[in-house]
């Protein structure tokens, strides 16, 4: 019989075994998606406003991220 504490610890240990392997673009997309959604929910109340804000912020995050990436490309080597 396992206690809730040991079950939680086992679950955490299992999660710890899963190393996260992401490319730069995947990391950027996850970051942009999560932050946009979080800011949208914290800063806006109406569902329509939220959705607009989330999509707009996500687009800007991605554009600026990829843009800065390309801007640094000539100096990368």
């Amino acid at each position: 019989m396992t206690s809730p504490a040991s079950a939680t610890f086992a679950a955490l240990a299992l999660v710890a075994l899963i190393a996260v392997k992401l490319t730069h673009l995947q990391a950027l997309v996850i970051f942009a998606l999560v932050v946009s959604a979080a800011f949208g929910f914290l800063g806006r109340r109406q569902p329509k406003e939220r959705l607009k804000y989330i999509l707009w912020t996500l687009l800007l995050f991605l554009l600026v991220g990829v843009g800065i990436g390309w801007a640094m490309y000539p100096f990368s080597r």
Partner: protein
Amino acid sequence: MAEETTVQEPLNPPQNAKRESFALVVGLAGWLVPGLGHALLKMWGRALICFLTVGVFVWVGAGMRGNLFTSRGNDAFDSLGYIADLGTGGFYWVAKSLETSGPDVSRADGDYGTRFLATAGVFNLLAALHAYEAARGRKA
């Protein structure tokens, strides 16, 4: 997921003090457990989003073997990193327990992980402040 914070009428001093202490408890709870501050105010959607955001960032950051700063930093940047990481509240120790192999910033992955962990902390501080302000009756 409609969450409304009503604009409160002016309160007399004892009520004001009571509300101020409740707001402090809400802010502190929101820092310790991401989303708990909003949950105490019955803002369920925001509570869930805060919990998930910080949770995902901590999980991804720790999974990428990001650097989790400690109080024994060598310079001001380490101390700032520690403050940012501490912003995750209880999730700081969750991240510590997830990083069984320790940080590895020799690869870009680890560097990204460090940023994810710091962002989780800063976001949680922002969310706790938002909950505190909402509990004080400010428009949120």
